[in-house]
Structure formats: C-alpha cells, structure tokens
C-alpha cells in the first residue's frame, strides 16, 4: 500500500491488531476483542479495529516485523522475541523466579518498573514500538514423567523449554537437560518418550492435552515464571493519530489489559481443574531452593543487561 498510514480522507483510521494464537479460546483473543469493542464504541466508528488470531502470523517474530513495517498496528509479543530486535533489557522480566505471585507481578509491571521498561522499549526501538500495557500468558510449571519432590529429581531429565539463554542455563543448573522441540510436535514427543518433561502454564499445555501423555501427567507447581507479554503499538503511527484518537486507543488498551488478565486468571483455574479431572497428578514443592539457585543467575543477567537497579526494585516489591 501507499504511505497514507492507514488513515483515510475523513480522518478515520483502521487498526490491524494481531496475536499469534489460533485457538479461539485464548485470553489474547478476549483481550484484543475488548480492545476492539472499546476503541470502536468510544470513537463512534472513527476507529475500526480488525483482530487477527494467528491469521497474519503464528510466529511472534513475524508479528514484530509487521509492527515495524506497518503490516500490523497492535501486536502481542513475549520478552524473548523482543530481545531479538536488539532490546536486551526486556529479558529481565523473563528471568526465572523473578516474581513470587501475580500480586507481585502486577505491582511491578503496573508501577515504576513497568514505566521504565516501556521507556526503554520506546527509546531503543526509535519509537518503532510503544508499549500500551502488560498482559500475561500465565504462570509456568513443570510437568513430566514423574513428580518433583526436590530439585534432585530433575537430574538427567530432558526438558522441553525455551531456547532463550538464561532460562536454558537455569534448567541446566538444576540438573535438567534443556531440549528443543517444536510446540506443535511436543504432544507426540511427550507421548513417545522423546522428552521426559516440559514446562508451561495450565491453559496452554492442557489445551494441547499434554497432561494426558505418559511424560506429561505429573505436574509440579514450580511457578518459575509469571510470564509477561507486551501489548505494543507502532509509536510513529501512534504519533500520527489525533489527540482524541490517541486517548481512545490508550483507554481501549487499558480495558484490554483488564480483560486479558481476568480471562487468563479464570482459565488458569479452569484448566488446572480439567487436568485433575482427566487424571493428571498435581503436587506442590518447596520453591525456596529453586529461588535461591535463581538469584545469582538473576544478578549476573541483570548486570549484563545493565538493569541491576530494576532488579533490586523488583525484589524490594515482594
């Protein structure tokens, strides 16, 4: 298309909002539909929002590229993929055991640290990306072929986990062997003993039936990652909108943050119950040794990213 930035003669704008999950029953979808609802209602149709559920990219990297070039206007991205754009600071939020509860997480991302992070993203990307709010993809737990009673039980277990450096290092230190398996192949991999275990949040792995496989039916609530997702808009495009349109978008984003989190929290309980009903075994574990192991890694990673001050703040807010 030409460079009209998506605005037509009468000043109305069209916003392409996209996430990477194809399942209709996903908190992302609830969040973006809320965004659409509020933006369209508040603007009396002056803003049109088109929601794409995986249709213009099931890879986050693709959505980030589209956000930059203008193929999408509002997208959802995880810290791991933001680091790919050269903004390494955001990976702070993906460090293992950084948060100890949703309350802690919300206090951090909705407070001063969240604001600082938003500034870093905006500055380092030259205004390509502007943060509209923090969503979550749930809290991640271990699930595998045996329940964990202590960290020693991880020794020698292969585990499907993210390929991001610090996370991989952390699991290596616990004794597990991080293994790369595509998400779409994981069900089979767990079923056929290609990997011994994996880690993810209830709504994600229960929807894929991983909890019904031999190597996925023991869930230990390690709670190692209260995940953060960035709701982003293209900053340059945002600046080209009228003041009124900007305010409406911010308001819609705020409503979407609330809707997404509510939906996720609700699904987390529902899918945990479903896992139990389907015969999976859930147990809790003393997280303290895991937390202790994570601390030096967090220190080192934060230092490398140059955000030791933010790490300290996050720890103080517990």
């Amino acid at each position, binding site marked *: *298309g*030409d460079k*009209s*930035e*998506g605005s037509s003669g009468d000043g109305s704008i*069209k916003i*392409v909002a996209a996430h990477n999950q*194809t399942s209709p029953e996903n908190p992302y979808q609830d969040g973006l539909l809320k965004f659409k609802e509020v933006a369209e209602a508040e603007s009396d149709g002056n803003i049109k929002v*088109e929601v*794409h559920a995986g*249709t*213009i*990219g099931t*890879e986050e990297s*693709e959505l980030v*590229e*589209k956000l930059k*070039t*203008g*193929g999408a*206007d509002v997208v959802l991205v995880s810290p791991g993929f933001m680091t790919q754009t050269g903004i390494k600071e955001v990976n702070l939020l993906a460090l293992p055991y950084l948060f100890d509860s949703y309350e802690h997480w919300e206090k951090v991302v909705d407070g001063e640290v969240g604001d600082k992070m938003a500034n870093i993203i905006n500055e380092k990307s030259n205004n390509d990306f502007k943060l509209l709010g923090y969503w979550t993809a749930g809290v991640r737990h271990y699930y595998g072929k045996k329940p964990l009673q202590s960290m020693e039980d991880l020794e020698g277990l292969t585990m499907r986990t993210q390929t991001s450096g610090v996370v991989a290092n952390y699991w290596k230190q616990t004794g597990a062997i991080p293994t790369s398996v*595509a998400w*779409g*192949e994981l*069900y*089979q*991999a767990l*079923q*056929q*003993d*290609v990997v011994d275990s994996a880690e993810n949040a209830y709504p994600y792995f229960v929807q894929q039936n991983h909890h019904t*496989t031999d190597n996925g039916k023991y869930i230990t609530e390690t709670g190692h990652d209260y995940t953060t997702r960035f709701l982003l808009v293209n900053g340059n495009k945002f600046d080209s909108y009228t003041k009124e349109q900007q305010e409406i978008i911010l308001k819609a984003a705020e409503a979407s943050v609330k809707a997404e989190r509510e939906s996720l929290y609700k699904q987390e309980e529902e899918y945990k119950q479903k896992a139990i009903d389907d015969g999976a075994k859930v147990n809790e574990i003393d997280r303290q040794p895991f937390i202790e192991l994570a601390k030096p890694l967090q220190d080192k990673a934060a230092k490398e990213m140059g955000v030791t001050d933010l790490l300290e703040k996050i720890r103080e807010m517990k």
Partner: protein
Amino acid sequence: MGFLLVGLFIVLMFIGIPIAFVIGIVALLGIMNIPYIPEMTVPMKMLNGLDSFVLLAVPLFILAANLMNSGKISVKLIDLALAIVGPIRGGLAHANILVSMMFAGVSGASQADTAGVGKILIPSMIRKGYDKETAVGVTAASSTVGVVIPPSIPMIIFAGLTNASVGALFLGGIVPGVLIGLAMMIFVYILAVKRNYPKQARVEFSKFLKLLMETIPALFTIVIIIGGIVSGFFTATEAAAIASLYTLLISMFFYKTLKLKDLPKILIDTLSLSSLSLFALATASALGELMSYYQLGTLAQQFFTNNVGTEWLFIIIIVGFFLFIGTFMDAIPAMILFVPVILPTALQFGIDPVHLGLIVVLTLAVGLVTPPYGLCLLLAAKIGDLSIERSFKAVVPYIAIIIVVLLFIAFFPDIAFYVPKMINPSLF
C-alpha cells in the same frame, strides 16, 4: 479487485510467465492495492514462508530419492519386484506398480520415482510389446503413491499448516496407498489379459532369496524412516536426513555403486528440483498473506455454514476444488494458499485435521498426472516419447481408481485409520 487479480493471474499464466512468478506478481499488485499493508511484506513473507524447520524435509527426501536412483538401488528394487510379480500376466506393469510402492516408502515425492523407474521400465515395456500408452500411463499413475504412502512431503506441509500430527498422517496414508496400488494391479491385470501382454519368467527360489538378501539393506530405509517418525525417535526432517545419509552410506560402501565424484551432480539435481517447488512456496506464502488480510478463512466459513449445511457436500466441494487447482499448481503452493481458507470450516463441521489432510493430499496426488501441470505425466510422456494428449488419455482410468479410493477414505475414514490405530492407538 479480487476478480481483477484472478483475471490477471490467468492472463499472466497464459502468456507464459512461470507460475511461481505469476503468484508473486499477483501478490505484489494485490498488496500494493491495500493502503495499510507495506509492499515489503512480499519479500518478508517469501522468506518467512520458508522459515520453518519441517520444510527442510523437502530437499532431504528428494536427496534420498536421487541417491537411490544414482546408486542403482532402484534397479535392485525393480529386480525384486519383477521376481515377485513378474510371472503374473503383464508382469512388467505389475512390477512397475509394486516398485513404486516400495520407492514410496523411502521417497517423499513422486517425480524421482517416475524418473528413476520410468527410465528403466518404460523402454523395456515397449520392447516387450506393451503399448506405449500402457507403459507411460502405468508409470506416471503408479508413482502418485509416492506422496500417499509415507513419508510424504505434502503431508509434512499439511501438518505444518494445521498442527496435525505428522506421524498420524503418515500412518493414515498406508491403507489408501496400498489400496491404490492393489486396485491399479487389478486394472493392469484385466488390461494384460485383454491385450495379451507377456509374463516374465519365474525366478528360481534360491535366486529370489539372494535378491531379497541383497535388497534388504535398501528396504531397511523404509523401516528407519517410518519407524523412526512413528516411534518419535526422529522428527520428519531428521528422518529425511537420516534416510539420505543411510542411502549414501549403503550405496557407497555396501553396494559400491556410487562414487564420491557422483555427488556434485546429485546435489545439483536435488537443489534444482527442490528450489523450484520451494520458490513457488515462497511466492505462494506472499499471496496467502494477502488472502489472510482479506480474512478469506472467515468468509469461507460463513459461506459454507450458510449455504452448504452438510459435511459430505463440503467434502465433495473440497475434492472438486483441489482436483481443479491441482491441474495447474503444485501440491505445496496449492496447500499454502487454500488449506488455511478451508480449515476453519472443516473444524466447524467436526472433520478431524488428519482426515482432512488425507483427503487433500490424495486429491492433490491426482494433480501429478493431470495436464497442463502434471509433473509425473510430463516426465513419463517425455521418457516414453508420447504426446501429452495420448498420455493423459492413458492415465484416465488410473485417475478414476485414485478418486474412488479417495472418496472411500473421505466417507469411511475408519478404514484409513484402522492401521494407525492398531499400530499406535494413542495418536488419535
């Protein structure tokens, strides 16, 4: 605008622009016409379309097949097939079908089979008094099982598009693949009796055993690939790499039919063949992107639920549609473009993605032998020096056989799923 683009597509194709470029040009012009999509989406999507680990299986399975042909392993398989079915009337034609079924267990595509087997069997069939039509027809038609019997490149692509399990699709292809082969043999038998085609001399049992022992290392490739994928020991891509490595090693060190100096040519052939279909995949990804901005999947879903109430009618429409598309497009770009469009509707009708995959892959297999763009037909016609028109006429009965099996599988999926459920019930 949509109609304009379709019109442009037809015109460009007709004047002789390569089809992969036609797809790319239409994608670019379509995207230029939508103000909020930047033009650089076209190169981006072309690359992103290829940025998928499963696609690496495409050149690797072609490499395995090329190694089998260059390493003369296909010759050994033909000898084995002749020893088994040669004494039946029309023996060479039966062997042609049987060897294609064996070849299919190693190769993920069909063209290498047409080329490798056709080069040997078409001339010898003609020499033994078979009609050219029969020689070309049976060669082209039987090689379609290459994409039905696992491994199968189209199945891998389908799995990538829909998140269906590759293992389940592969297992699901066994019954229809074998049915197609058997049905073709019955047809060939009737033809052979009518036209009095020759039998081959019976092979002594001791010689047969020797032949079998010789071919076991080659046949073991099938066990490695299918067993490896189904048991989850490797992914499809890894299995393709292992198959290539294994074929390379046995033909260099066991059969000693392949030399190091043969490798560059094999690699060039592999790169040529795979880059042709993968470049078409790249431009198709760009066009598919345009289609997803139009939200064609949602539109199709609305259309089908409002106008086509029943599952079986929907299946008939899909089959008809892909039969048509397959006449002028390769299976891979056809799936990239249209599987995302039909998937939401199929799911809503409660059609299992693995079942849908079998229907789509079987239908597109027919496209391998229908002109103008039927690669196996073109190849076999060239080898047999027969016109496309006459070759197509020869292949029509076989197409009917494939379609009958396809409809059978479409409406009685339990038959296709019998074997996979027996082997690995947890896949379903």
